[in-house]
């Protein structure tokens, strides 16, 4: 009996410790900013690794999602004789929901897992502790540039995703379904508000960027330094950050929906 209670207590303490370490890491990353001159090349390298190299998958999936939404939307809207409203349908659903969420899920799979595996392996091969031996703070040298690069890359990838998806829908609607391009754009422009739709979507993506990189970096930094531990950390990164994205999306939408 007493053993079971102790196990429960240990479980609780471990959870609190875990969150505490994650919070401490985030605090260190945000509070001890590396100097701009020294940190900038590292940041650039990480934006390249996390953002530029994710570009292909974002563009391809953006184009196909835009076209699929246009095709499905046209099919349903034409039943009500409202196919002119295809532009607003695509633009609003992409800018408000699909853009930030799909980009975040792809980002978690493409960049988040790589971050966790990279840092986990650095820890397993004692690179992080040898940095500490050389009086180099691994949080500043390794964690911080990756964190900021993720926070910068996510909104940018979302903007590119939105653009490509809307252009894909335009291409499909005008060149395939034979809609009028003027009414496509003008209906879209009268329905979409820059502040409420586009900017809110970008705010969402910033929140997702912080959440994903934080989870990935913490999972990597806290991984058990074995091959199984790294595998676990990578899996958990993708699962946790996908769940976090979907949960946060619900909360953010509920907060933003009042203005729509």
């Amino acid at each position, binding site marked *: 009996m007493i053993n079971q209670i102790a196990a429960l207590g240990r479980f609780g303490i471990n959870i609190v410790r875990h969150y505490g370490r994650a919070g401490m890491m985030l605090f260190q990353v945000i509070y001890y900013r590396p100097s701009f001159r020294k940190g900038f*090349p590292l940041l*650039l*390298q990480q*934006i*390249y690794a996390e*953002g*530029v190299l994710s*570009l292909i998958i974002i563009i391809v999936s953006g184009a196909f999602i835009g076209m699929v939404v246009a095709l499905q939307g046209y099919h349903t809207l034409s039943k009500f004789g409202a196919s002119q409203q295809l532009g607003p349908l695509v*633009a609003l659903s992409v*800018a408000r929901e699909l853009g930030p969420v799909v980009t975040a899920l792809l980002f978690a799979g493409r960049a988040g897992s790589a971050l966790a595996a990279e840092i986990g392996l650095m820890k397993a091969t004692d690179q992080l502790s040898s940095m500490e031996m050389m009086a180099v703070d691994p949080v500043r040298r390794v964690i911080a540039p990756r964190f900021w690069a993720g926070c910068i890359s996510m*909104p*940018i990838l979302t*903007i*590119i995703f*939105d*653009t490509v998806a*809307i*252009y894909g829908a335009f291409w499909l609607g005008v060149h395939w379904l034979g809609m009028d391009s003027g009414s496509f*754009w*003008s209906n*879209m*422009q*009268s329905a*979409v*508000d*820059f502040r409420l*739709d*586009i900017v809110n979507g970008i705010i969402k993506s910033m929140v997702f960027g912080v959440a994903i990189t934080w989870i990935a970096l913490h999972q990597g930094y806290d991984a058990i330094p074995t091959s199984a531990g790294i595998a676990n950390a990578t899996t958990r990164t993708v699962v946790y950050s996908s769940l976090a994205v979907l949960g946060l999306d619900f909360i953010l939408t509920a907060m933003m929906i009042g203005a729509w």
Partner: protein
Amino acid sequence: MLQTKKTEIGVGLFLLAALAGLIFLSMQVSGLTSIFQRPGYTITADFDDIGQLKIRGSVKIGGVTIGQVSSIAIDPVTYKAVVTLRIDNNVEDIPDDSSASILTAGLLGDNYVAITPLYSKTFFHNGGHIQDTHSAMILEKLIGQFLFSINHGKTDKGNAK
């Protein structure tokens, strides 16, 4: 060194792509004009009922958009809705006895303000006020009136017999 250069070029192009995307989203998708707002002047109109009229709704003369609704407020004394309309500068000769009405685009479309010009030789200026206004048609009210008039007609006939 070559590797760094390649990285920098890649990130630079990445940021440029983002900027281009943002411009596309603001201009082409959301039709953002408030930053580069065309010069215009504002006139106000008091309506009893504005229905579903919203800010950024369009203002039309003869179906041509000539401006947009810039704000909607309530007059605390008369309890009328005060709608401020921003009219483009190139439409400056609106007679000041014109009437404004709130119409619906199609059966289920958005509401907009239609201005019907009349014959006065003096024109609206900035801060002008439209006297003659017609409220939005509310479908429920119309149905209510219709039902009422049917019932009323029946009872009248009954009395006459």
